[in-house]
Each structure stands twice: as C-alpha cells, then as structure tokens.
C-alpha cells in the first residue's frame, strides 16, 4: 500500500515541479506588474510579498502612455492576415499530399520540415532586400507577405496528419455516391478536420505573433511595429527598463495565447501521433 501512496506523491510532486518550472518567470512577471515601483526596486524585503499595496498604474501606463495598443493592433492585423493566407494555402496542399499523390505524398510529412532547415536567421538578410524591392519595407504588409513561410510548412504538416487519419474509403464512398474528387474533399473530408484547422489557426497566429527577426528588421517606424519587435525597443529607453510595463506587455500577450494553445493541446499531440505513424509505417 505504501508503495502506491509513494507513487502518487511522486506523481504529483513531478507535476508540481514541472508546472512550477514552467511558470516561474511568469509568476514573477505577474507579481511585478502589480507592484508599486517603490516596492519593486528595493533590496532586502521579501520580493514575493506586496509590502506596498498593489497597483494597476503600470497597466494604465502601458495602455495609455506607450505605443503598446498600436503594437497590439498591428500584430492582430498581421496575425489575421497570415492565418488567412496560411489556411488558404495549407489546407488544399495537405489534402493533396494526403490523398492525391500516392505513397510519397503521405510520407513526405517529415520532409516538409526540412524547409525549417533554412531559418529566418539565415534568410532575413536577402528577405529584407526582397521586401524593399516589393516596396513593402517599414509596413506591416512586409510581414504579411513573409511570415507564411514560417506558418505554412508546419500547418501543412499538421493538417497532413489530420487528413491521413480519415480513412480513404470515405473518399471512395463519396466518389461512388456522386461527388467529384473536389466534392469528396469538400463535403466529406473537410468537415471532419475542422478541429485540425482550428489548431492550425491558433498556431499560425502565435507563430506570426512571435516572430522577432523579420519584425525587427523590416520595420523601424514605431507606429508600424508589432508587439514582439516594439516592446523591446519602445519600453527600453536607453538603459532604463520599465520593468512593470514590460512584464505587463509580456503577460497581456502570453496568457491568451497559452489559453488558446491549452485548448488545442490534445490536437497538437494527435497531429504528432499521425506523423509518427507515417514515420514508422504503421
């Protein structure tokens, strides 16, 4: 009996430690947001306690006195556009790979990731030139055009797993029932992968939101910046760090994203399971 209790304790200890590890910086950020400046930049007293009463001032400053709302707006516009482009291109591509290309298409899953061998940190130099040439430098549209390079491979791969999970016989039954090939896709297969498309939208949005290199390189005007590039540059004036505002900005972005990701956690796992099955030939 004691073995079982030991195992339970160990289990929850493990969960607890993992959870703690994940949120330590976030926890500290959270405390920082609500601490009065006088309570923050001091030595000695317990930093985890509110020795002065908590305040909302920093949040107010963030939204009123900085360009943060503009950054949010820009990021949102870019995010929505990138998601739209991603879905429009990835969904048909994933279906084509899953159904229409014979054996190699289905197994190309892992090969898609080889695109990520060429990371933004390599491409941003020539990419900048292309953006200038397209006349999009210093506008958010430069990001809308370029960021799908990061989202499309991943989303295609994820959707490939979802499409693959639907038995081919259903396509065939639809063909016999009177659909053409595209009709079978539209009416029988597509309705079943909406959860996957939802997961893709979340990931595409967060991948586009999180991009730093392109956002920092292509756009210099503050009013055009997105959150990830704007926050470090705007809220750090020379050597002065407005920590509470910085932490507030971080949390305002991270928490909703984490909630969205958390909702689709199981779909992400499922996507990797499909990919693994293709890998091991099951």
């Amino acid at each position: 009996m004691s073995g079982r209790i030991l195992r339970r304790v160990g289990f929850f200890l493990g969960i607890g430690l993992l959870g703690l590890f994940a949120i330590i910086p976030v926890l500290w950020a959270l405390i920082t947001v609500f601490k009065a400046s006088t309570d923050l930049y001091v030595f000695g007293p317990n930093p985890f306690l509110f020795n002065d009463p908590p305040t909302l001032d920093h949040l107010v400053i963030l939204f009123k006195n900085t360009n943060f709302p503009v950054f949010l707006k820009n990021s949102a516009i870019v995010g929505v556009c990138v998601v739209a482009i991603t879905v429009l291109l990835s969904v048909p591509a994933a279906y084509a790979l899953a159904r229409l290309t014979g054996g190699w298409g289905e197994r190309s899953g892992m090969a898609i990731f080889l695109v990520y061998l060429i990371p933004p940190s390599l491409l941003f130099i020539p990419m900048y030139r292309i953006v200038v040439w397209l006349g999009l430098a210093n506008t958010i549209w430069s990001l809308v055009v370029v960021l799908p390079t990061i989202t499309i491979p991943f989303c295609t791969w994820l959707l490939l797993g979802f499409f693959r999970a639907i038995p081919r016989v259903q396509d065939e039954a639809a063909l016999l029932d009177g659909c053409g090939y595209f009709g079978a896709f539209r009416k029988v297969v597509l309705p079943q992968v909406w959860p996957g498309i939802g997961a893709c939208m979340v990931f595409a949005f967060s991948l586009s939101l999180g991009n730093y290199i392109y956002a920092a390189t292509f756009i210099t005007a503050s009013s055009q910046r997105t959150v990830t590039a704007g926050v470090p540059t705007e809220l750090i004036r020379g050597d002065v760090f407005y920590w509470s505002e910085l932490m507030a900005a971080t949390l305002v972005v991270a928490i909703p994203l984490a909630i969205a990701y958390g909702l689709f956690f199981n779909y992400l796992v499922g996507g990797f399971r499909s990919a693994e099955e293709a890998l091991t030939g099951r």
Partner: protein
Amino acid sequence: MNSSTIAPVEHAREEGLLARLGRALDRPQVLVWLMLGPAVLYIIAFVGFPFILAIALSLSDATIGDPSLDRYVGLANFAAVMRQDAFWIALRNSLLITAASIGLLLVLATAASELLVYSFRGKRLFQVLFILPWAMPVSLAAIAWLWLLDSQFSPVDWVLVQLGLLGPGSPLGPFSHLYYLGRPWLGIASLVVADVWRMLPLATIIVLAARLSIPEERFQQARIDGAGFFRILFRITIPALRPMLIVAILFTSLLIIGEMGMVEILTRGAPGHATQVLPYWAYLKGIQSGSLGQGAAIALFLFPFLLVAAVLALRAAYRSPEA
C-alpha cells in the same frame, strides 16, 4: 428495383463552359497541381529564392551601402569570417548551448510525457500552464528572463540568500548577487536554462505523442514479468520512443541553433563575445556592421552540416525497428 417511385437518376447537366471546365479540372492529376501548387510556389518564391540569394550574397562583396551582387569574391567572406575570434566563440557556443539544451530536454521531456500519459484532476489547467513557455513569443520570454535574472533585483538571488547559499561566507560567493547574464559561463548556463524552459512544451508534446502510441499490453506484459519502473522505462519505453526522440532532437535543435532573439536580449553576446552565437553574430556583422557578404557567410556556415545531420536523423528514424 422493381417498385421504384422515381426513374433512375438523370442529372440535368449544364454543358455550359463553366461546368465543362469544372469537370475537366476535377481529376486527381489536375487537382494535385491546383491544390498543392500555390503552397509550393510560395515556398519556392519566399524561401528557395532568398536562399539562393543568401548564397549569392555570401559569395559577393555586398554591403548595406552597396548591396549589389556583381562582385564575385569566391570564398573570401568565409575566409575572413573564420579569421575572427568571435566567429569561433559563436560557433562553439551555438553548438554547446544546443547540445546542453538537447540533453536536458530529452530527460525532462521524457519524464514529463511519462506523467502526462495519465489523466488527473486539473490536467487542463496544467496543460495551459505547461505550454506557456512555448506560447510566449521569444522576445517577450527573453525579457521575462532578463528581469528574473536581473543583476540587482532577481528574486532568485533573494531566495538563495535566504537559503544561506549566497552572501558573505557562503558556497556561492561573497556577493549577494550572481551576475547570471554578465559572466561568461554563468551566462551560457542561463541561456541553456532559458532555452530548455522555452522548448520543453514542444519537446514534451513530440515525445508524448510517441509515448501514447505504445500499446498498453507491452507495459502490462512487462509488469507481469516483474519489471520495475526504471527497468520498464529504459528497456521498453525509451527504445520504443527512439524514432520520435530523434525527431524531437532534430526540431528542437533547429529551433535553438537558429534563434537570435534570446541572446540579443539577454546578454547581447557579452561579456565581450563570451556568449555570442552564430545567428546573432551574423546579424551584427551583416546589418549593424554593414557587410552583408560576411553576414550571409556566417549565417550559412552551419547549413550543410545541419542538412546532413537532418537527413541522417530522418533516415535513422525511418529505419527504426519500432513498428
């Protein structure tokens, strides 16, 4: 059917041009191109083409002031780059940080996936918290760590002092602050911790997916045969996870080795170049110093090795006996 109430179905086919076009296009051979084409073309245009450009840049004398590509200089950029001390330190650090992170990630992700196989109360909430590091944009995560490891106000220091591990006459030194981001090896360690923190959710999900695919009977059989927790872990779980562990290593190392935001915000490569990494060094050389050719050369340096490593890794995973 003998007693059908309707005649066999007749489609009233409009033989209009649009309908005829629709039928012509509705064949698998055509649909493949229509559906796969846009994505492929986009990637070729915005990844393939810039990649070629990057290679061309690395072989030319382009600078920000004069970004034309017509002066071919062969491998001179690479030679120049390899004469810089900072380059070798950056290379060493990139590999070191990636390797150390991977090592820690494998252990932690396997442990985490062992726990996440089970359902428990509050698992949903846990998933949200657990995935926070991955959900946070890299630059903002870096800022959060910058504050957490601040040289003056870090709560970690405070805790260590309270525990008696820091401060006058204690094991970690006489000062009441550790300069996590200001000392060479401590800085590297901090970068590793931050990278592991950031990548753990993704690594865990990859491993968890594989872990869930292991049939339950295998564990039951092992338990009947008398195997304990650790024996099961090492003899059954980990061998079965092998292909996806390789995949996890591949993805996470690509993501770590190509990331510049962390270093730029946390240490700026300091002190000196002690915590420099390749992508940031490429950025400094290329954009800030202005010599695009050298920047491209630095950024391109690891690519052939990564390509070979990736192909080998994928083949090892494909050939895995785990089925």
